[in-house]
């Protein structure tokens, strides 16, 4: 049982109180009884005196020893008397154990015939110890009765307290222990306490439980809402096709989604905790990324860039990178980086680009692209030589062997021409059997050399397997220099074209001629003459 339990505590208090009250009561009672018994003793002595007084008076009057002894013996035969004595003028009779020193009660004895004639004194010694014993006996009985009473009161008090107060409270406590807060469970009100304070307590506890239940239900529904929202967000995040990563300012990855995992896997890289600031290690051109971010963040915007990822695969992976700076409520900075795979569209764009700028047959730059390239060069004022080339005798071959053979020949020519040209040089199909060659940073001598090589290469016959016949073409070339000959692009082209037609015209007479310059210092006069 609990040491500090209500019943034990109450029992201790009641027992303690009962003992103290009992002690006080018995003490008081004992004293009272003792005094009372002494009083009763005196009363008894007086009664004894009145009983023996006639005889004692006669004995005293007559000084009769025998009669006096009779009286004395009669007196001491009482429990209440220890000793007695009769004293007259001439006679003294006392009991054996009579001691003068101890206190005694004295009664005057008068003559039986003359009431005013004192004839002697009767001494009686009261048996105090007998009285005390008697008083003690009564007190002991009282003490016993009080003790029994106290015991009964204690037991009844404890039982009543236990069954009326403690047990209901304990039951409520036990019930409370078993109750799960937030459920509809309630404590049962004890039958005997419908209106009492314990009943009130039960009601209050139940009210509290009801409130707790409401609160918990509300919290539960809120939590559910949050969970639903969270799962939605998670779904959104996890199923996003773009890789989304949250990184700390030093580059530590805080959060990433499945798409990012897949992307890293695609790059044949291992998943690491840190890929440098803004994931820079993943990009080939880190510098571009940093520049973009610097500019964007300065304007409080998200940085965007299209960058190629490092990859150990053959396929190039391009992504659109979006870096957004996030500041949390507690002023911590982090970056949300979205990597959107644009490889496919990039590829499509490159295909379109190919279509738009390249010739479908020869895969050389088309006229439009060549013009664009030329415009770029003139805009940047880079010097170059422009060679306009036209194939001779192509038309008859086309007519005789058909377009397919013509096309075949054109492809062959293109490949032959490319073999001669340097990497920086540009070869484009200007249209039909016309080609434009751009040689940057070149001299007249070099142009002559290159053109001779080109002409030599073309002069070799081409075998048409379909017709089992070899064909060959020649070319006429006109050259103009930028910016020496012309600054205006159209004029530059026209002058090269003019020079080329000049060659074609003169070829009828001079079969070896294949090249002409817009301004030939040696031929200026010739040219002007010819014109």
């Amino acid at each position, binding site marked *: 049982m609990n040491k500090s339990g209500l019943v034990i505590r109450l029992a201790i208090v009641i027992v303690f109180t009962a003992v103290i009250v009992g002690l006080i009561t018995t003490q008081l009672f004992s004293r009272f009884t003792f005094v009372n018994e002494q009083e009763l003793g005196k009363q008894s002595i007086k009664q004894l005196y009145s009983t023996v007084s006639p005889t004692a008076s*006669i004995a005293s*009057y*007559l000084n*009769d020893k*025998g009669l006096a002894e009779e009286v004395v013996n009669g007196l001491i035969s009482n429990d209440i008397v220890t000793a007695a004595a009769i004293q007259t003028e001439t006679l003294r009779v006392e009991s054996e154990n009579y001691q003068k020193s101890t206190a005694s009660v004295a009664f005057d004895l008068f003559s039986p*015939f*003359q009431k005013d004639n004192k004839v002697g004194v009767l001494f009686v010694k009261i048996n105090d110890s007998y009285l005390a014993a008697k008083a003690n006996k009564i007190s002991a009985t009282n003490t016993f009765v009080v003790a029994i009473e106290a015991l009964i009161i204690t037991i009844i008090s404890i039982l009543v307290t236990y069954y009326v107060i403690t047990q209901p409270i304990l039951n409520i406590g036990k019930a409370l222990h078993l109750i799960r807060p937030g459920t509809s469970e309630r404590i049962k009100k004890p039958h005997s306490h419908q209106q009492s304070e314990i009943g009130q307590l039960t009601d209050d506890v139940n009210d509290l439980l009801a409130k707790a239940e409401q609160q918990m239900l509300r919290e539960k529904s809120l939590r559910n809402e949050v969970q639903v929202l969270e799962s939605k967000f998670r779904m959104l995040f996890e199923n996003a096709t773009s890789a989304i990563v949250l990184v700390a300012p030093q580059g530590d990855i805080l959060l990433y989604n499945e798409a990012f995992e897949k992307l890293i896997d695609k790059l044949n890289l291992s998943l690491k905790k840190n890929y440098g600031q803004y994931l820079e290690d993943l990009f080939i051109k880190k510098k571009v990324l940093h520049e973009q971010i610097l500019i964007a963040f300065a304007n409080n915007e998200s940085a965007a860039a299209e960058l190629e990822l490092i990859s150990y695969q053959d396929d190039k992976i391009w992504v659109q990178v979006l870096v957004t700076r996030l500041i949390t409520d507690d002023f911590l900075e982090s970056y949300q980086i979205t990597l959107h795979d644009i490889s496919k569209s990039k590829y499509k764009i490159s295909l379109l680009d190919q279509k738009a700028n390249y010739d479908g047959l020869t895969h050389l730059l088309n006229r439009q692209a060549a013009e664009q390239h030329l415009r770029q060069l003139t805009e940047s004022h880079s010097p170059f030589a422009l060679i306009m080339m036209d194939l001779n005798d192509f038309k008859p071959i086309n007519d005789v062997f058909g377009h397919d053979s013509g096309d075949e020949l054109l492809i062959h020519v293109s490949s032959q021409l490319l073999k001669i040209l340097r990497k920086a040089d540009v070869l484009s199909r200007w249209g039909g059997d016309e080609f434009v060659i751009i040689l940057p940073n070149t001299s007249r001598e070099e142009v002559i050399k290159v053109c001779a090589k080109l002409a030599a290469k073309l002069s070799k016959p081409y075998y048409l397997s379909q017709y089992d016949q070899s064909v060959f073409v020649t070319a006429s070339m006109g050259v103009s220099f930028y910016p020496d000959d012309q600054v205006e692009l159209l004029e530059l082209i026209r002058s090269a074209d003019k020079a080329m037609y000049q060659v074609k015209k003169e070829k009828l007479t001079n079969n070896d001629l294949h090249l002409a310059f817009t301004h030939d210092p040696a031929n200026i006069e010739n040219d002007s003459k010819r014109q």
Partner: protein
Amino acid sequence: MSHIKQVFVILLLALFIEPVSAKEPLVVVVNKDNPVEQLSRSELIDLFMGKYVAFPNDIKAIPVELNSDHQIKVEFYQNLVGMPLSRVNAYWSRLRFTGRKRMAVFKSNENDLIAFITANKQAIGYVPQSLITKDLKVVYILNE
């Protein structure tokens, strides 16, 4: 019964009243040759109640009593100790058990009593005043 008691009481009262109304006092007398001239009331009581058996002059005294409940005897004790005769008798009965013997001479009437005192110097007795002779000496007069 109560009537009988009432009558008895009245008769008894009549008995008491009669001598008083007669106004004849009782006297205590001795032989005229007895040297005692007068006795006090206490001395009388001591002699008749048995405390002393001698006169104050140490001469042996012989109290003379009337027999049983003689009217004069009743009157005498009533006058001397204020007690009815029954109580006086009870007193003597009480003393008899202790071994005390009464030193008294009993006479059946006044004349015998007077004759005894006349013949005996030590005797002392009580008689109505009217019966006094020249051979008797009055030592005490009661109910004066």
